[in-house]
């Protein structure tokens, strides 16, 4: 593949999956500021290794590969920040998704509880749900992105949905 062809194909990949990478990044890091950086870094990394990835993909979609890059970069980000804490945990509960005064009130009064709850929801389950619901990936794509078998991925998603439903039901029951 010559350079012009690489650039053209990468440009197509970028246009097709910018929203996917951004959505994944946003739900992983929880704010637009870092999501932008993570998205940019993901495509820069992808460009570096694009030619090899195309060769090794055997024609399969490259979206799982892109998401895996974003996953690794996000993990690096959290690792770096864990080494040098910057903000109190309480401040880490962003309210960017709140849309109504009612939601705002609810978020304000339960932010600490939400943080505790989200910590008890395992990262792999969280990621699987983001890929399934925010990106619309099927089991096979998610399996490739997470480096798991199709069967293990199916079980992971099933358990993630069940656990999330239980947590939400308990919290909603507690509010009534």
């Amino acid at each position, binding site marked *: 593949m010559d350079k012009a062809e690489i650039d053209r194909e*990468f440009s197509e990949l970028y246009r097709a999956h910018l929203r996917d990478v951004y959505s994944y990044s946003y*739900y992983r890091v929880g704010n637009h500021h870092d*999501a932008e950086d993570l998205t940019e*870094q993901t495509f820069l990394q992808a460009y570096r290794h694009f030619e090899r990835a195309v060769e090794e993909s055997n024609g399969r979609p490259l979206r799982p590969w892109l998401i895996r890059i974003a996953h690794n970069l996000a993990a690096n980000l959290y690792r770096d920040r864990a080494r040098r804490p910057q903000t109190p945990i309480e401040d880490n509960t962003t309210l960017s*998704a709140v849309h109504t005064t009612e939601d705002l009130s609810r978020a304000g009064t339960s932010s600490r509880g939400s943080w505790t709850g*989200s910590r008890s929801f395992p990262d792999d389950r969280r990621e699987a749900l983001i890929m399934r619901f925010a*990106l619309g990936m099927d089991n096979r794509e998610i399996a490739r992105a997470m480096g798991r078998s199709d069967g293990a991925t199916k079980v992971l998603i099933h358990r993630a*949905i069940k656990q999330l439903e239980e*947590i939400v039901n308990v919290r*909603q029951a507690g509010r009534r």
Partner: protein
Amino acid sequence: MSDHAAPDNFEDIIRRALAPVEPPEDLPARLETTLRSLTELAADELEGWELSSMRDPRNWVRPVAAVAIGTAAGAGLIVLGWRRQHRRQRNVRAAAVEVRRLVRR
């Protein structure tokens, strides 16, 4: 988030909570400019691009528009069915907010 949908199963609530997020309008142009300039660089020159350039997190609160509230005089005339439906919609919306918080960092 629309109040009209009343999902019957939890997967619909998750789908609603984790809707795809559109990148900011200026991101594609900025990224394309960066990528275009990078095509001129040798691969080893890219090593300098590390996550360390990530900026510090900032917590921010999106300004939330106040919701106009109707007059209290008509409240007593609201039928029970409407109340039930409204409560259900509110619960679905609350569940979606909760799901988003739990899944998002």
